[in-house]
């Protein structure tokens, strides 16, 4: 199957990059989440000043997606933040037509020589924990700081007004639960009612929200340098505290919620984020966005369970999400909302 895909990809890139002699080799599928099929490959071609070989990544839509995400948004977010100088791979080509590879896809630079943390690993960063931690929260602050108009993303999906962010996001994820729950979810429903009854203050600004900024979604090297922030497929306009709340969620804490994302202490993380973003963290607002984060998690896991149960996407990660992650966030929200 990869032979055929390799040939199709070769034909596509040869035309796209105007390099008729382009050759694709070493195409192999790698883990990359359930919402896109991810492959690494090498492309050798004449770029106009001699032959080069590039390590590239193909992200292709699966037959069914975990959460319907817009690959155009993902590609444009990579473009915008790569240009801004953040550690983001260079996007190469976006193809929405299904003719070339049967489904829409995009191609981007592969960042080599790096690791990605599994949430099941209790200490993935080891001696580089503090160094990576400082970068992790600083980069998130820089994303929050970016001017959405200046980087060309002011038309992304999401709330346009600072006082509409919370309502937009609750409505979005409530609909996912309405559409995908295969059994009643009392804790999710209670959380939705709580979020609506206790709205946060308006956002300090409208930012690009990465949407899934967390441990496991960035690449780091042996020197403890973050080289790539990945998985921008849920990027949207919204309150920058949304990303902060998601990144602080205990599911991503590698077992130690006092060190969110398995990195530095919570207070240090928030201080670094404030310095990088130029924004202040209102504790009450952050509490709301952290509660929302766990509800959003539930919605994603409910959707994953539905995809698996209905046979549209039987990647084991969907079964795992529907069991382990769903139970985890139900526990988090039950503890939080019962206080």
């Amino acid at each position: 199957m990869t032979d055929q895909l390799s040939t199709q990809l070769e034909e596509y890139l040869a035309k796209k990059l105007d390099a008729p002699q382009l050759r694709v080799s070493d195409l192999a599928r790698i883990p990359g989440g359930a919402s896109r099929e991810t492959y690494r490959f090498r492309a050798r071609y004449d770029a106009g000043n001699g032959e080069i070989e590039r390590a590239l990544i193909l992200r292709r839509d699966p037959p069914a997606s975990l959460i319907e995400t817009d690959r155009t948004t993902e590609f444009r977010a990579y473009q915008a933040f790569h240009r801004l100088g953040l550690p983001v791979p260079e996007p190469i080509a976006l193809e929405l037509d299904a003719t070339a590879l049967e489904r829409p896809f995009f191609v981007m630079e592969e960042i080599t020589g790096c690791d990605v943390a599994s949430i099941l690993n209790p200490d993935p960063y080891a001696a580089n924990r503090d160094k990576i931690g400082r970068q992790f929260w600083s980069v998130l602050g820089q994303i929050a700081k970016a001017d959405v108009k200046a980087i060309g993303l002011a038309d992304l999906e999401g709330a346009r007004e600072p006082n509409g962010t919370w309502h937009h996001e609750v409505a979005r994820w409530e609909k996912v639960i309405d559409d995908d729950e295969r059994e009643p979810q009392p804790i999710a429903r209670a959380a939705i009612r709580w979020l609506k009854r206790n709205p946060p203050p308006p956002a300090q600004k409208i930012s690009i929200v990465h949407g899934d900024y967390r441990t496991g979604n960035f690449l780091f090297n042996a020197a403890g340098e973050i080289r790539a922030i990945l998985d921008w497929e849920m990027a949207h306009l919204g309150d920058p505290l949304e990303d902060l709340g998601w990144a602080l969620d205990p599911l991503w804490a590698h077992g130690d919620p006092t060190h969110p994302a398995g990195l530095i202490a919570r207070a240090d993380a928030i201080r670094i984020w404030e310095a990088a973003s130029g924004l202040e963290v209102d504790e009450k607002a952050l509490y709301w966005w952290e509660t929302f984060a766990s509800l959003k998690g539930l919605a994603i896991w409910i959707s994953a369970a539905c995809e698996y149960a209905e046979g549209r996407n039987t990647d084991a990660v969907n079964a795992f999400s529907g069991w382990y992650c769903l139970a985890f966030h139900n526990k988090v929200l039950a503890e939080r909302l019962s206080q």
Partner: protein
Amino acid sequence: MKPEVDQILALSSQALMGALVPQLPPGFAQGSASLLGIMMMLSAQEYERGAEIRAAENADMRALFREAAPRIADAGLKSLVSKAAATEDRSLRISALNAENTELRRVLIRLQAHAEEHADRSLQRRIWDVLKASAERRLLRLA
């Protein structure tokens, strides 16, 4: 029935992750096989406890409904809660327990929303006790 299903799943998971996964090429195949091994391990846990946690959850909700029904003023909801309190698990099959659980959860959601609307704090606390116990029971252990 020996060996039991949970033992077969647990040992198969160990064999998959310990002996077979390391022989697969790194990347998608190795990652996917590891996750299948984890799902087998979690399935072993669920086989052993699945009926018990559903039966306990259903019993907790019915007990809650029996306590709550007399204090509900809304006639429609009172009737719904009373009827749900009087149901019982007629089979220990997972599918049958799930069907009962689904109906009981629907009533619980309505009862909790009602308690919030009427600021009935003691009923809210009692409902959260049931939900916390349920969430705790359903947690899965990876180690």
